[in-house]
């Protein structure tokens, strides 16, 4: 008699999880990233390869490529952004609903890369805030997958509730060179 029960049989524990709102929201967001391929140049081909059968981006829960910004929450800027294209990239970014993230795929999108010329924007971070930069010209599909996993880790640690109450910090673009 008076045996202490150590088994798991509490009804309360079975149906309630005590956690932080941030953790839940981030968990949901992290595993349902819908990327929008902003395919501009060569990197877009590697982006397609990442979606193809060999690399298969869907293993990480991010395969729902949406071509409409209104349905997507992660913009993958794949390719050289020229000044003529920059305003378009910004407009498309603004059409995405909050919260939203940006991955700069490849050297051109990150920093202008090998195109140091009159027509090329020296890094897409001058028009949109970038969360993850991927190096390479073009990056291998594995590098893109790695970047997406990094993005998931970043989403996991965000202050989502605080950001819900305040304005989402979307204006973190780099202004050192253009102000």
């Amino acid at each position, binding site marked *: 008699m008076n045996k202490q029960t150590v088994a798991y049989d509490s009804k309360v524990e079975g149906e309630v999880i005590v956690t932080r709102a941030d953790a839940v929201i981030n968990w949901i967001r992290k595993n349902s990233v819908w990327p929008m391929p902003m395919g501009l140049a060569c990197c877009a081909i590697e982006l397609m390869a990442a979606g193809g*059968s060999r690399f298969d981006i869907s293993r990480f829960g991010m395969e729902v490529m949406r071509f409409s910004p209104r349905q997507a929450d992660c913009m993958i800027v794949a390719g050289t952004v020229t000044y003529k294209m920059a305003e378009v990239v910004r407009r498309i970014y603004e059409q995405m609903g909050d919260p939203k993230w940006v991955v700069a795929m490849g050297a051109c999108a990150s920093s202008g890369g090998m195109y140091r010329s009159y027509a090329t924007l020296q890094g897409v971070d001058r028009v949109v805030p970038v969360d993850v930069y991927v190096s390479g010209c073009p990056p291998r599909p594995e590098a893109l997958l790695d970047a997406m996993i990094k993005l998931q880790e970043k989403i996991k640690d965000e202050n989502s509730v605080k950001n819900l109450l305040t304005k989402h910090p979307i204006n973190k673009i780099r202004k050192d060179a253009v102000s």
Partner: protein
Amino acid sequence: MGEVKEVSVGDIGSRAAEADPELKAETMALNVGPSHPSTHGVLRLMMQLDGDSIKECEPVIGYLHRGDEKIAENMTYNQFIPYTDRLDYLAPLSNNVAYALAVEKLANLEVPDRCQAIRVICCELARISSHLLGVGVYGMDAGSWTVFMYTFTEREKLYTLFEELTGARFTTSYTRIGGVARDIPDGWLGRVDSFCKGVVPILNQVDKMLTRNRIFMDRTVDIGVITKEKALSYGMTGPNLRASGVDLDLRKDKPYLGYENYDFEVPIGLNGDCYDRYLMRAEEIKQSVGIIRQVIGSFPEGLYYSEDAKKIFAPPKDKILTSMEELIQNFMLVTEGPQMPKGEVYFEAENPKGALGFYVVSKGGGVPYRLKIRGPSFCNLSILSELLPGHFLTDITVILGSLDFVMGECDR
């Protein structure tokens, strides 16, 4: 069953207005792109629509203009090779070869047989790679997603071959002026051969899925017809021109790289419609496979670079580290560039998309004075403003897919 009336495309609004003047239709402006899944790049089309049919179309390009020609004027000839990768980024190897051939023509340089054979394999593999994507994406545009998966899997195999040869999946920078970067790896030819064996059944599968597919044919036959005269007048080249019935293939007409030694057919289209342009690419892949097999069958021994190109081609690395003369040669090559004679040349190579031309003006020295790149996609797209009006809005995806363009070489 009621009588089926022939409704000609493009006059729905005017017919409605004829029937009832009150029903005067207004045209609607529609903008497609520059970021749009069906445009295959950053192409923008500004259109005036009458109902569902296109009245006017103005293509807007330049969203990927990166200043390649200006960059070339500020670089030595060798330094520009990586930029040629990114012109037609679906077939970088053939761009490399075309650029190297243009500069070699300026330097009056002949490369050895082995180097030519390697380059031919490169060009044809690039052609296969480009057309595989062209056909696959075209299938996707017409509603057949499966074809894309089939062809993309084959492209991945090609990428593995490219990687082994050049070190990169598709920005290869493989050729050098006066040769190629390195000799082919051991056993590579055998793997190319087995790829060629493997790709033919896949092509047959694609053929079964598309060629006599009712839906595909309904969407492509007699859509986007380009007459022979129109195609010539707009300066179209490559498969798009041949689909219109013009027999122009620079590999046959102006043989370079020893193409005259290989036996292959140049397919010619009948009607110049979207369907013919698909057939053209499907057949060219098969021809390219044939060419590669012939090259492998008679692969010459020898050097992979030209020995005459002492002042142009970087000496082998082991020699640089051990021999004074080669060290100086390498140093001069890096600091001053390959010394070229004064003059101007224009060279075109038959690339997957059409004739990729380089017009090189040299004042002597290691830097081109002016380098003009003639991108075939640029010319192939210029016909859009005349081709699209009269078609339905839904035909745009098919027509754009059939033209198989790349904005990288269109905007440069």
